[in-house]
């Protein structure tokens, strides 16, 4: 097959993946957030190692490829317990990785960075494995004889580019990438179908390999269970190891926890994902046997490609694409997860100290590139000496070192930071000694003598003189045993610190911190949520919010400033300033968008206000012109017809008086509006409210008689310190409003309630339409042909006097408002003793200011 054909089809396939990702961020969002996409995205667990390495392992060691899938399947049995809890934690604290969890749980400044750095190093073999798989497959199919490394380098760069394009197109504070999830789910489907198709076609065309294998005694061990203690131990170990890896691989945490949209997706994933693993393992053994039977001498890791090539190049191409897409998905998600780890735990705290934080996205991209280059380096150093699966397992053991501190931390309160740190350090050191360095030694980069160890009891691949175990089982048992022992032992002998007291903080201080770092909206939102929380809870909430945005280490540093253990002022200011910068960079685009929106909203509001003023002018001029016309016409008639009959004359004069009154009322309202706009203070004086109400009723009496509306009153004697003219204006506005809408009656009530005067103006009119209820008190909102100022003025006046006004529910319309009494106890000299409950016998009528 020509390299150009391979490259073209590869480019086309990756282009398709990219389209799927775009779909996931756009129209396919619902699909990307669905339970199936979630379950399928978990299958990022199956990498090129599964696709090509499983067959290779089955062809050389038999069924030992299976435990790697049994582990995750067993873990899924505990999935609802473990993962439900993890999801809850992750959501509450915006965890993006296990390193975040360790940091959160133990609050040791070293744990997060240590775990992050260790994960990066520990996963290099795994990433190198993907490079090797792709390079191998490419060389095999193209028939070129270049050194593997020459192909692996462009592959590394290409995968890095792809990961950058996929995972770091923009920065999302939740670290969720819907497009990526959909692309990974799609890719999982492709690799499964491709693998099954290859398996079925090979069985179809080459025949059932099992009967033939019976006649080949050298193939028999492949079909039998492992033998002896070492075999059983290896099997159980692999189950345990892969189960832990499934839990602790950064990419698995990313797809199963960070990208989880809804915890209800778990039940489906709990059966769909094991089913997926079962299906993708079905063709492994037949293909391995077929390879051994038909292609003796071929590299077993390449059977998946070599077998289809025997039949059809097209099928081989499909197998190639399946393998490449498995590798691509793994590299993209893993390097993204690692870059988040690096930027949150290693880079951000460092850069913050030196205030050198540039664009976080750029740092993420550089981190991805760095990880891929390191993976390439590892591949150059050690890759040639190992089979695919062997390399992957070294990474698995590394990842499993997080298990004791994490799982114990999750379920045992007694684990201490010192214990976790000791366990992690010990396990890591032993992992490096028993697995990582021997891999380098085997490839000739360390002296061969390293494999012998300084002492027979310290042989890297046979500690304490153990022999007969394969290196991975040995390394896993040794490192995890030491890790667990140290974690438990040191925890038992160190004292659990009292629940960190420094995590408590005043809500106001925390809100101020959030306001400084995340912006004013975050501060307000926090105040709203945190009011009423106890100190430690509020501090935890604030920390979670900060962590989601600037990473947990930085968040912790920031929080110290708002809690009791305050660091030096200078450092505090520096860190805050740097965090602000980081935040500013992150939200630059968001802020721009928000500002644009705000501007256009403000413009709309101004436009509406302007329009409303125009409308007010039109309304006022209409209101003025109608009575003016009438006055003018009536006056001219009276002037021109001095001989009018007495009855008609009186009628005209009454109309004239009424219209003049209407004009003066209107002028009063416009003047009151102008006064309000000018913001003059109220003129407070002791006032007899009952007397004032009666005065208002007398003023509207002519109007009520004319409209045929019956006025009712229920008045208590109440005195208050208030602005008489303004209260009168309020009452007149409400009464005119009521009279304009009433059918038969208007009722005015005045009571004393809880130290306030309560007024109620009730009419039996049609009531305020539902859609207008919210706007009745806004200016220029006329629903009845009035000026639209009456109720607005009333509200402004009431509020200016320290009261409240509202519209009550019920038949007709009821406006109610309150005024504070604010009466001083000494007699202000107006003889107003009537409002004192302790002064009986004084008639309230005697009052009045």
């Amino acid at each position, binding site marked *: 097959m020509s390299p150009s054909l391979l490259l073209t089809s590869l480019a086309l396939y990756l282009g398709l993946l990219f389209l799927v990702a775009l779909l996931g961020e756009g129209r396919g969002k619902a699909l990307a957030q669905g339970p199936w996409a979630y379950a399928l995205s978990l299958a990022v667990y199956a990498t090129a190692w599964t696709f090509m390495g499983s067959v290779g392992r089955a062809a050389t060691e038999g069924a030992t490829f299976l435990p790697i899938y049994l582990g995750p399947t067993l873990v899924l049995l505990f999935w609802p317990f473990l993962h439900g809890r993890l999801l809850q934690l992750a959501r509450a604290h915006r965890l993006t990785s296990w390193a975040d969890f360790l940091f959160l749980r133990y609050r040791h400044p070293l744990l997060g960075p240590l775990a992050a750095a260790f994960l990066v190093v520990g996963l290099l073999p795994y990433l190198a494995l993907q490079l090797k798989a792709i390079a191998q497959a490419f060389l095999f199919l193209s028939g070129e004889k270049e050194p593997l490394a020459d192909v692996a380098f462009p592959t590394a760069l290409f995968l890095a580019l792809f990961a950058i394009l996929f995972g770091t197109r923009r920065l999302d504070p939740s670290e969720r990438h819907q497009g990526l999830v959909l692309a990974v789910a799609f890719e999982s489907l492709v690799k499964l179908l491709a693998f099954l198709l290859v398996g079925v076609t090979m069985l179809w065309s080459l025949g059932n390999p099992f009967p033939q294998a019976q006649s080949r005694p050298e193939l028999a061990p492949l079909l039998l269970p492992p033998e002896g203690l070492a075999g059983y131990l290896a099997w159980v170990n692999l189950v345990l190891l892969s189960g832990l890896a499934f839990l602790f691989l950064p990419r698995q945490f990313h797809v199963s926890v960070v990208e989880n949209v809804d915890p209800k997706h778990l039940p489906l994933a709990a059966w769909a994902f094991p089913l997926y693993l079962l299906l993708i393992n079905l063709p492994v053994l037949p293909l391995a046997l077929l390879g051994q039977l038909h292609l003796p001498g071929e590299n077993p890791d390449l059977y998946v490609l070599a077998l289809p090539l025997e039949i059809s190049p097209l099928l081989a191409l499909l197998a190639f694409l399946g393998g490449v897409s498995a590798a691509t998905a793994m590299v993209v998600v893993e390097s993204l997860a690692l870059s988040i780890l690096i930027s949150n735990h290693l880079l951000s705290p460092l850069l913050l100290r030196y205030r050198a934080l540039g664009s976080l996205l750029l740092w993420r991209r550089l981190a991805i590139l760095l990880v891929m280059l390191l993976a390439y380096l590892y591949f150059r150093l050690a890759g040639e000496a190992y089979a695919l699966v062997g390399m992957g397992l070294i990474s698995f053991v590394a990842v499993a070192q997080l298990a004791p501190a994490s799982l114990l931390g999750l379920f045992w309160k007694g684990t201490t930071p010192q214990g976790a740190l000791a366990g992690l350090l010990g396990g890591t050191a032993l992992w490096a000694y028993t697995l990582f360095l021997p891999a380098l030694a085997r490839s000739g980069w360390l002296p061969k003598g390293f494999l012998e160890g300084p002492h027979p009891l310290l042989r890297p691949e046979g500690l304490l003189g153990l022999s007969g175990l394969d290196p991975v089982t040995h390394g896993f048992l040794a490192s995890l045993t030491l890790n667990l022992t140290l974690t438990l032992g040191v925890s038992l002998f160190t004292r659990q610190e009292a629940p960190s007291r420094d995590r408590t903080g005043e809500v106001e201080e925390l809100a101020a911190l959030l306001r400084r770092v995340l912006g004013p909206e975050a501060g307000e939102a926090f105040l709203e949520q945190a009011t009423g929380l106890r100190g430690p809870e509020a501090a935890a909430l604030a920390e979670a919010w900060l962590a989601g945005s600037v990473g947990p280490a930085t968040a912790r540093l920031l929080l110290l400033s708002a809690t009791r253990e305050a660091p030096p002022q200078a450092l505090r200011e520096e860190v805050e300033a740097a965090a602000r910068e980081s935040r500013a960079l992150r939200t630059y685009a968001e802020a721009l968008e928000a500002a644009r929106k705000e501007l256009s909203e403000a413009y709309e509001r101004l436009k509406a206000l302007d329009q409303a003023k125009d409308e007010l002018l*039109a309304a006022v001029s209409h209101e*003025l012109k*109608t009575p*003016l*016309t009438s006055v003018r*016409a009536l006056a*001219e*008639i009276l002037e*021109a017809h001095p001989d009018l009959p007495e009855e008609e004359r009186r009628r005209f004069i009454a*109309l004239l008086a009424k219209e003049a009154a209407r004009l003066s009322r209107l002028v009063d309202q416009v003047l009151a509006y102008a006064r309000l706009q000018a913001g003059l203070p109220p003129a407070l004086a002791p006032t007899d409210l009952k007397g004032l109400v009666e005065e208002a009723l007398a003023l509207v009496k002519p109007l009520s008689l004319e409209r045929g509306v019956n006025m009712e009153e229920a008045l208590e004697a109440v005195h208050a310190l208030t602005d008489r003219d303004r209260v009168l204006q309020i009452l007149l506005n409400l009464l005119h409003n009521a009279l304009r809408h009433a059918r038969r009656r208007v009722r005015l009530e005045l009571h004393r309630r809880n130290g306030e005067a309560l007024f109620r103006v009730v009419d039996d009119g049609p009531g305020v339409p539902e859609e207008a209820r919210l706007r009745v008190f806004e200016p220029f909102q006329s629903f009845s042909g009035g000026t639209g100022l009456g109720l607005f003025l009333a509200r402004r006046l009431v509020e200016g006097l320290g009261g409240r006004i509202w519209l009550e529910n019920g038949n007709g319309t009821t406006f109610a408002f309150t005024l504070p009494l604010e009466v001083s106890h000494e007699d202000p000299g107006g003889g107003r003793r009537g409002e004192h409950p302790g002064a009986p016998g004084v008639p309230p009528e005697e009052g009045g200011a």
Partner: protein
Amino acid sequence: MDDEESILVPLEFLLKKAGHEVTLARTGEEALAHLGTGSFDLVVLDLMLPGLDGFAVLERLRGLPTRPKVLVLTARGQQADRAKALALGAEAFLPKPFSIQELLAQVQSLGEEG
């Protein structure tokens, strides 16, 4: 027609004095009902009415077989209102506040044309 008694009363008086027969209507609907039952020479119409407004009345008037002349009264003396009223077929337009002479002169000239 007008929704304000204080306008209707003096107008009725003036028009009757000038020798016209006058029917009053307070809303657009009322006016259209009257127009359906008898024949009129002139409608004096306020633009701002509750319910069916002056423009709507003008539009309905165009559909009548024997259409009376229309004098439009309005407190909103804007050019746009004037143009719209005239476009809808009003013969004359009188912004408020007007003098009784102006009104009578308009009514007079409309009567002579007819």
